């Protein structure tokens, strides 16, 4: 299970945090190799530490939360159960709506239960993921 926890979906979702990590990496490299100052061990350690520590913590938090979400996603699709009432949950895991299906006007109370059942948030996330990837 552990290898499959981070499937393509999840990795794409996590790309959002790869951008700030990339920026931090860029600056770490710049400060190490293109610094206009000479490397003073103490100050360099602090200034690089100020970048490395947030980097490491961000990697850790992203990893842990991504794993928790991915695991629950798998067990939830297995169980496939929501609360007994008609309350729904506010995340993308359930039905994703297609905008075309929306009632066109406000006063139109057409009871079109306009939900498409491919239970996945993959579509919009994928698009966004690709966009962000290129940054």
């Amino acid at each position, binding site marked *: 299970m552990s290898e499959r926890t981070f499937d393509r979906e999840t990795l794409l*979702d*996590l790309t*959002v*945090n790869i*951008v*700030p990590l990339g*920026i*931090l990496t860029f*600056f770490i490299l710049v*400060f190490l190799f293109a*610094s206009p*100052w000479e490397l003073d061990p103490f*100050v360099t350690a*602090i*200034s690089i530490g*100020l*970048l490395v520590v*947030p980097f490491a913590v*961000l990697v850790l*938090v*992203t990893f842990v*939360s*991504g794993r*928790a*979400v991915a*695991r*629950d*996603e798998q*067990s*939830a699709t297995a169980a496939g159960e*929501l*609360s*007994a*009432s*008609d*309350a*729904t*949950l*506010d*995340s*993308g*895991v*359930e*039905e994703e*709506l297609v*905008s075309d299906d*929306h*009632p*066109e006007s*406000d*006063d139109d109370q057409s*009871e079109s239960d*306009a*939900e498409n059942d491919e239970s996945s*948030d993959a579509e*919009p*996330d994928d698009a*966004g993921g690709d966009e*962000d990837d290129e*940054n």
Partner: protein
Amino acid sequence: MVEAQLVLTALMGLFLAGVAVWLSRIEDWRSYTPLAGGGGAVGEESGYAHDEKPSGLIRWLTTVDHKDIGILYGAYSIIAFAVGGIMVILMRTELLTPDEAIIGSQFYNSLLTSHGITMLFLFGTPMIAAFGNYFIPLLVNAEDMAFPRINAIAFWMLPPGALLVWAGFLVVPFTDIQPAQTAWTMYTPLSAGVGTGTQAGVSGLGIDFMLLGLHFTGLSATMGAINFIATIFTDRGSDVNWANLDIFSWTMLTQSGLILFAFPLLGSALIMLLLDRNFGTTFFLAEGGGPILWQHLFWFFGHPEVYILALPPMGLVSFILPKFSGRKLFGFKFVVYSTLAIGVLSFGVWAHHMFATGIDPRIRASFEAVSLAIAIPSAVKVFNWTTTLWGGNLRLTAPMLFCVGAVSNFIFGGVTGIFTAAIPIDLVLHDTYYIVGHFHYILMGLLAFTVFAGIYYWFPIITGKMYQKRLAKWHFWLTMIGTNITFFAMLLLGYLGMPRRYATYTFGVGPQQIIEVLHQVTTLGAFILLVGQIIWVWNMIQSWYEAPTLQDNDPWDLKETGQFTNEWGWNERRLETAITDGGEEEETAMTDGGDPVDGSADTE
């Protein structure tokens, strides 16, 4: 000497661990939760609590029900918002003229300090806790908060906190004590009582009061944060998991984590400052740790604090905006992970508030780098919101208007933030009105706007009534226009070099005439905001008392788009229970669900 200290530290650590072990043996902590033997019962109506509630004032003084405590938090915060607002109206009135004409600079400085502290600690943080308390247990299908009594204590720390923060104003007519005039950042040496001004000696006691008051509010926030974390982790219903946790709960969880690491630090720093002031220590004096130490400690708390105040509002936008766009939030997971990223990175940027203090430029550069990195997750959210709106089926109800306004304002606030994150630009703009414009675009433009959005959105759940639609629109437009007039003029003032925190502007920085006009424009904007807020308070109070009870369980037509979330489900079950119980006779009411139901009473 060093060895002795180490030994002492180790002994102290052992002692504390011993206390913890002892406490865990004598008490079965789990027995405190939940309130009654519900064990893991999930998502049921917690109606039993209602029967036991005493009536009248006693109910509010003794309640441990998360919804009541949420209302208490909300009422408290709105009173604080009004106090802070009146303070700033006085200040803006003084700034109508360049010289010291109306309230005088000492009183101005006192108001400035209290305005900042009040808005951040007595309005912002508790107001967010109000939403959290009322809605997190409903959203995650918990019986109540994990620790209902700690929840009550956390709230009841706040009124004494407020009294102490405002104590200087309350006693100044009778004593020599002056209200604190340190600004909200409480920079030493001024706040340490050095020198002979009004902040030293007896007249400086106002600062001690304020520091103690802040300590109360910090304790309150920390207890609240622990409670939110415990609730979301351990008390959520079996149908709520990490994959489908709603976005508001995610942001509250992250925010609570920030509080947990930031506020205890503020508490310690406040105690050190109190010791410096009263017991002759030298933590922050030039001969001791130095004033820069205070700035480091303060901003290590202070920057996370600004995100403590920004993340849940971002969550509210992410939560409410899709409801009126007819579709789910675009890229839900992106918003979740970028929220966590902001949470982590917000601890790595504190010295961007200290670029102008002469700290080592190599270290300064690192802070610039992280400040640029943190802008990405913030921007990601803006793109997600915009994409959610794009091609959506928009319904411009009051909560939606405030959400859209908040997104717009946040763009101004965020972009101006990125500018100041660049050291060369910051050295020019630091300590000018530009900074004031920047953070007010976020604090007023995002935080206050989303608070309004949340209150309008959940008004039917909290009160069982609907607010008055027309007044709400007035409120929105006055607030939107007022905010942008006030704070855009501030950005311009900053470009012209107008320094912040002055009661006068006769000292000839920049083009005097333009500065005067811009100050007057700013004051005009503030008055517009005042009018808007008066309308809002009137709307809330009158609608709560006089509007007909709402029959509709789904006033926003959320079922149509499959977004009828848990808190509305809970509300529906509650109302249905009430009806089978043969509830009271009720008039029908219209909703602000975007349906043009004109011709009916203005209460819709």
